[in-house]
């Protein structure tokens, strides 16, 4: 049986430092990226997502040497995102040794790019990340700074699937870093339209949140960052991940 995926999300900035954001801003430094990945590696995590959140903003190209280093120390699959704007770069990143690349909804202005990339590297290696924000009870696609994008989320989901996205990551602006629980109401609205594997990230505060998510929806994976990075009210940096026994409890219905 396919195991429910629990996926740490790690962010890096322009200095290649590992950071954690709240509401896509307010950065907190959480250590050396390679070091953090080594620790996750030892904990046998399902897979890992690494996003360079400055690349598109500051218009630099993905750091291929860093990506190669990450890929070669990982004994689990890696998804890389940040600054991927064309087919050529997608191919370079896959050749660096990661399994999936992530494209962000904020930079997708033409769906042909999705088609091009998926035909070349295969849908299974193309993940599309959707930033969503709740404003007055309604959900909107947003840019990385939280600004609305004039596209309907459901139409967007249907389009990217049609053009070859192999996975969708739903990234909650409101819940990012707030440990306020997953936005299950959002999933109620959209999951009927999703026909590829998907992940929700933003808001997870403890294993109970993952358990609730898994219980309610049979297919979606759990993305987490704060709970695997911080410990205690003061948010001291401490890397953690559920043990085999804890996982059994999480997946128990």
């Amino acid at each position, binding site marked *: *049986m*396919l*195991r429910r*995926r629990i996926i740490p999300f790690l962010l890096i900035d322009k200095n290649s430092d590992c950071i954690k954001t709240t509401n896509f801003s307010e950065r907190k430094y959480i250590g050396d990226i390679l070091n953090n990945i080594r620790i996750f590696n030892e904990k*046998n995590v*399902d*897979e890992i997502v690494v996003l360079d959140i400055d690349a598109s903003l500051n218009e630099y190209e993905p750091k291929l040497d860093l990506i*190669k280093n990450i*890929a*070669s*120390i*990982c*004994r*689990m*699959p890696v998804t890389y995102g940040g600054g991927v704007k064309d087919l050529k770069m997608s191919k370079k990143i*896959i*050749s660096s*040794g*990661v*399994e*999936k690349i992530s494209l962000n909804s904020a930079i997708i202005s033409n769906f042909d790019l999705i088609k091009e990339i998926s*035909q*070349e*590297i*295969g*849908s*299974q*290696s193309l993940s599309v990340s959707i930033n969503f924000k709740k404003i007055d009870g309604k959900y909107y696609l947003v840019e990385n700074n939280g600004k609305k994008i004039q596209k309907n989320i459901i139409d967007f989901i249907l389009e990217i699937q049609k053009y070859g996205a*192999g*996975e969708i990551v739903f990234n909650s602006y409101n819940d990012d870093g707030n440990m306020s629980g997953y936005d299950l109401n959002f999933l109620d609205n959209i999951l009927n339209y999703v*026909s*590829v*594997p998907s992940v929700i990230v933003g808001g997870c505060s403890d294993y109970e949140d993952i358990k609730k998510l898994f219980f309610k929806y049979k*297919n979606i*994976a759990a993305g987490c960052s704060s709970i695997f990075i911080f410990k205690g009210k003061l948010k001291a940096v401490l890397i953690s991940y559920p043990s085999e026994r804890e996982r059994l409890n999480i997946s128990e219905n």
Partner: protein
Amino acid sequence: MIGIINYGLGNINAFYEIYKENGIKLKIIDNYKDLKNNYNKIILPGVGSFDKAITLLKSKLFFEEILNFSQNKNNKILGICVGMQILGSTSDEGELSGFSFINNNFDKLKSKLIPHIGWNNVLIKKNHYLFENIEDNSLFYFLHSYCLSEFQKQYIVAETSYEQNFISVFEKENITGVQFHPEKSHTQGQKLLLNFYKS
């Protein structure tokens, strides 16, 4: 000597590091001519699409050389993910022909959610050196949309279920294919790669 074909697809470094940690030198084969040296085992990795893999192997002149290599039945080939699929003759994914070491088509998965992404159980169907010291039903990492859905029983090494059963490992003579990614499957994946080296 063991080598890995570097044709532009797949995580060469992860394989290299795994073998290195275990004191084994995995040669990275960048040029088809190098395959004429004394290799007796090669790994054909792959992350990508069927036609893309074949096109790259042909443009780098690896294709013919790998066919030659396979003629010697003491030589072993291990294909991984799309590297397994191109061992077959065709795929629903592409229009080109594969190596045809096995005369099979790779079919699109019939499951509701495609691709098949994540950790799934590998059910061992017969004793095999690749699974020495690996428990039956262990989890390995899968990332694919096409699969080998049928094969003669004697060639099936392991199966996996994702709403449908498919063959996750096969071996026919000196040709072996695994659908999952051992290089990304933690300890059990490393064991499998070492078992291939020791075989």
